[in-house]
């Protein structure tokens, strides 16, 4: 198992670490059973994500995908953020080892969970957005 240089760069120097005070939306996904927990904070003004940050407990890939996902959503409209898939996060990191693909899924879900929280708090309806899963089961299919 080998991480790309980009994954290692984002792991060693993660972008957007921390909390956003009075965030518009916060989403936490994953659990300790799986070994990864991601919490994404979004600041949304109008329909634009003006800031994004994260806190992650997890392996190198979990940290790197969180970092990259927050980079990708910043400055995008909500509709554009809805188009960002786990594959986009993976591609932006020059790929992930197969056993780590679930980390990118988790990053996508963390962003969507933060959008869901924003939607619940603000009453703004986001087309195509589904509520976060109650019991998170990422990763087990990849074993």
């Amino acid at each position, binding site marked *: *198992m080998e*991480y790309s240089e980009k994954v*290692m760069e984002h*792991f*060693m120097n*993660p972008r957007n*670490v921390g*909390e956003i005070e009075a965030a518009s939306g916060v989403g*936490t996904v994953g659990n*300790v*059973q*799986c*070994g*990864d*927990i*991601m*919490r994404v904070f979004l600041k949304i003004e109008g329909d634009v994500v003006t800031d994004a940050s994260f*806190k*992650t*407990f*997890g*392996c*190198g*890939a*979990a*940290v790197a995908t969180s970092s990259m996902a927050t980079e990708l959503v910043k400055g995008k409209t909500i509709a554009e953020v809805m188009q960002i898939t786990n594959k986009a996060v993976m591609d932006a990191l020059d790929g992930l*080892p197969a*056993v*780590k693909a*679930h980390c990118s899924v988790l990053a996508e879900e963390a962003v969507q969970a933060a959008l869901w929280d924003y939607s619940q708090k603000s009453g703004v309806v986001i087309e195509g957005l589904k509520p976060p899963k109650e019991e998170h089961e990422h*990763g*087990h299919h*990849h*074993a």
Partner: protein
Amino acid sequence: MLYLDNAATTPLQHGVFEAMLPYLNENFFNPSSVYKPARQVRAAIDEARQIVADVLNAAPNEIFFTSGGTEADNWAIKGALEASKRGRHIVTTATEHHGILYVCKHMEKQGCEVTYLPVDREGFVNPQDLDAAIRPETALVSIMFANNEVGTIQPMEALSEITNRHGVPLHTDAVQAVGHIPIDVETLGVQMLALSAHKFGGPKGIGALYVKKGTPIFSLFQGGAQERNRRAGTENVAGIVGMGAAIDISAKEISCELPRVSALRDRLIREISEKIPHTVLNGPLGDKRLPGNVNFSFRFVEGEALLLHLDMQGCCASTGSACSSGALEPSHVLMSLGLGHELANGALRFSFGAGNTEADIEKLMQILCPAVQKLRALSPLYDDFLKQ
């Protein structure tokens, strides 16, 4: 580079490579051939066998060379099961190395029954549990001598007293112990014992199984008559010679190395406990722990991430946590000790060997402390903890 993964493998001890070299070059002859040069190669194997036997206090005809610890473990279990007249039940522990555990899982699929003895918080088996688990149809008991992850040294003499009373053969996977703590198979009272050369400064690809005279065991391989008909296949001569040289050096140095390496272990345990808050030592303290083994869980931090930080700074350590092996399950050893997922996923193992000194501990602490701090700053679990 800071190498703190001697439980994974060790570099060759001084002189081992030189001892092996002739058997890869000019002394290439097949030891089973009849002419004089081949007989000299045979003599080198016999000499190595004698050294291994002497170190373990066994007879040379009780030592069988294998391709390593995994083969020795596979052979002990499958060979003893097949030869047993008692039945198809195995007793082992929940914290065995995969070399035993997965063989037992495989044998379950073949219709055997397996009892996995639980361990306490420090990894010890309770001898009373063993006594209760043995049945008339128990073919074999297999209990590891010393745990590879948390260093727990089992009370083998108390355990063998029970198996011998029941008349059941006892195998022990002593791969982590041989060369590091004194081993006497007579005192231990075991019928079989597996060892692996590369864990004590010998080459990879060579190991041995001690089989006490009179212990029923079938062969794993059929073919040639090597190893007194017990292990077919042309001998790994250079490996055997290297193993003999390495165990010889280890045995001679053990009276110095055991206290020296134990002191390194104890100092690192003390430093981590004192300097890094929210850490948990896994495994016991003192002489019931392998001299080179240190295993800590760093709360709020995932093991692989910490390992990567150390790796980026040239420090080699190990983890049994979820992500490290590509498997998504945390270490079965740590879970069996009763750790929750978070602590099991946040565990790191440092293992000292002949090449390590006090200075290595200082170097490690200079890398480890900021790495833990950095990852905790990233961790939502640490946030939640601070807010409680």
